[in-house]
């Protein structure tokens, strides 16, 4: 029996009379890498923010790690990690200071913070940069660091909003290594991306068009269903029907 860590039913978000997320229903299983695709403006970030407790849904149901997003948004927060689309570490703090700060916010003990920092810096081979300001790091390293910080407190689920935007191919590979490692440790990964090669790495994919989920399955099954050679083609088929420009 699979354990479902995210369950949504008819989840909807309206801004005025514009429906950004339109009645989406899906589930995500524990330990899964769940890809959340869609053209720009499809509503991915908006949906993700509702699941993280950052934004109140207009209607519909959703639970994350078994917790209701309406009534217990704050409680969800200690069970998840989040990397927002904008870069979200403090650029004017050093690598270690960022780790220490977020560790402290998530109430890790001092000794935990210490061992975690060492582990993390070592894992990312950031030793020489440990006391440098994050703002001075190359983009790829910043993103890897941000991801590691987002899972510092060992959350059940981590939400990644376009984590590999502007990252070179090599660093992207390394980034996905980190993701697999985290997934291997039982952390559920919920990720949005515009790279179709990355989509192939996911266990299951949903494709959003104009706020609705148009397709949801494993990459293989989707390719079969749309008789496409690769994910690019699947995406084109679906996204072409989109009305939302940009």
């Amino acid at each position, binding site marked *: 029996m699979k354990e479902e860590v995210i369950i949504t039913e008819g989840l909807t978000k309206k801004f005025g009379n514009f429906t950004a997320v339109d009645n989406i229903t899906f589930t995500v299983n524990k330990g899964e890498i769940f890809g959340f695709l869609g053209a720009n403006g499809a509503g991915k970030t908006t949906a993700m923010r509702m699941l993280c407790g950052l934004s109140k849904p207009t209607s519909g149901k959703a639970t994350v790690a078994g917790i209701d997003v309406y009534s217990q948004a704050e409680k969800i927060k200690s069970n998840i990690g989040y990397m*927002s689309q904008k870069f*979200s570490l403090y650029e*004017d703090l050093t690598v270690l200071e960022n780790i220490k*700060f977020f560790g402290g*916010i998530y*109430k890790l003990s001092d000794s935990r913070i210490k061992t975690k920092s060492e582990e993390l810096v070592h894992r990312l081979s950031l030793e020489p940069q440990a006391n440098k*300001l994050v703002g001075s790091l190359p983009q790829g390293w910043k993103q890897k660091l941000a991801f590691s910080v987002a899972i510092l407190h060992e959350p059940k689920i981590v939400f990644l909003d376009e984590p590999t935007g502007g990252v070179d191919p090599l660093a992207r590979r390394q980034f996905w290594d980190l993701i697999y490692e985290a997934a291997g440790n039982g952390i559920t990964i919920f990720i949005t991306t515009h790279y179709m090669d990355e989509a192939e790495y996911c266990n299951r994919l949903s494709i959003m068009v104009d706020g609705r989920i148009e397709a949801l399955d494993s990459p293989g099954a989707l390719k079969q269903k749309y008789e496409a050679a690769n994910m690019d083609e699947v995406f084109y088929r679906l996204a072409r029907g989109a009305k939302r420009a940009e």
Partner: protein
Amino acid sequence: MRTLLFLLQKEFKQIYRYKAMVRIIIGMPIMQLLLLPLAADYEIKNINLAVVDNDHSTYSQQLVSTIIGSGYFRLAEYNQSYKKSLKLIESDKADLILEIPEGFERNLVRENKDQVLVAVNAINGTKANIGASYLNNIIKNYNQSLRMKLVTSNQGNQAIAIDLVNSNWYNPEMDYKSFMVPGILALLVTIIGGFLAALNIVREKEIGTIEQINVTPVRKSYFILGKLIPFWVIGNVVFTIGLVLSWLVYGIVPAGNLLVLYSFIWVYLLAVLGLGLLISTYCETQQQAMFINFFFIMIFILLGGLFTSIDSMPGWAKIIARINPVSYIIDVFRMIILKGSGFKDILPHIGIISFMALLLNSWAIKNYRKTS
């Protein structure tokens, strides 16, 4: 509690790293405290008088020298035409014109009576009023002395004189600096505290790091406190530097107890910072936060009782003054620094400001939404 420490550590580090900001928030107040109090003197002296004497008689010249001899007026011009003197008023080089008509002496001797014209630039009403009343009174006294001369043989009648003896307490030399320096310091502390607090949270919103905080389980009150305390410390530092400077440069030493003074500043800063934080929870961009804060700070400063007296304001503005924290700090500084009032005297002020601090900060905490 431990979370708060982490938040504080982060804020202090960020401030420390932002050298350009620190330079401004320490340097600007020092510079302004050294310069501005010297500019804030509105004692009415040197009222400039243009005289148009169309008579050139003994009497008219006597009148003019009596006026100039009074010490209130400076002769800006003598004996041009009225039209030319009016030009001086237009260019603000003269404040009043006295025109003595032709045949002045003759009329006085024959008919005992004549008119002179006093034209006043009345745009600045106070100066106009006071200048005109000085001049009128000098003319009246001159009348009197003329009259005495003529009737002197009659009764030996001596003019009655009432002397006004002035005691200026707390500031016998009427040195406006001892009033202005603490006042300007109060304004500087207010401006710096208010703006830093208003801009800080919005700045995190604009950069996007606030999302990362909002997605953590951190308590709202801790987050706000984490923002409040560092700026509170900065406010205290700025205030202390200012106090030392006023002592070194202007020789102003608080007549009252320093601890009383500080205890007021402590709550006062909480109130001002609270307002800034509240504004920043309502705004999306630094630009908005700054303009709204600018709006409030301007009103607070101009209606705070430092530049124009609150007594001079209409009723509704006096009500604004009652909810204006600046009016309290100006008042309290005046009381403690100049008059040496004690804790008991400023207790009502502390009470009201504490209430404001509490209200504004809890409102800010309430209005800061981690979930939109």
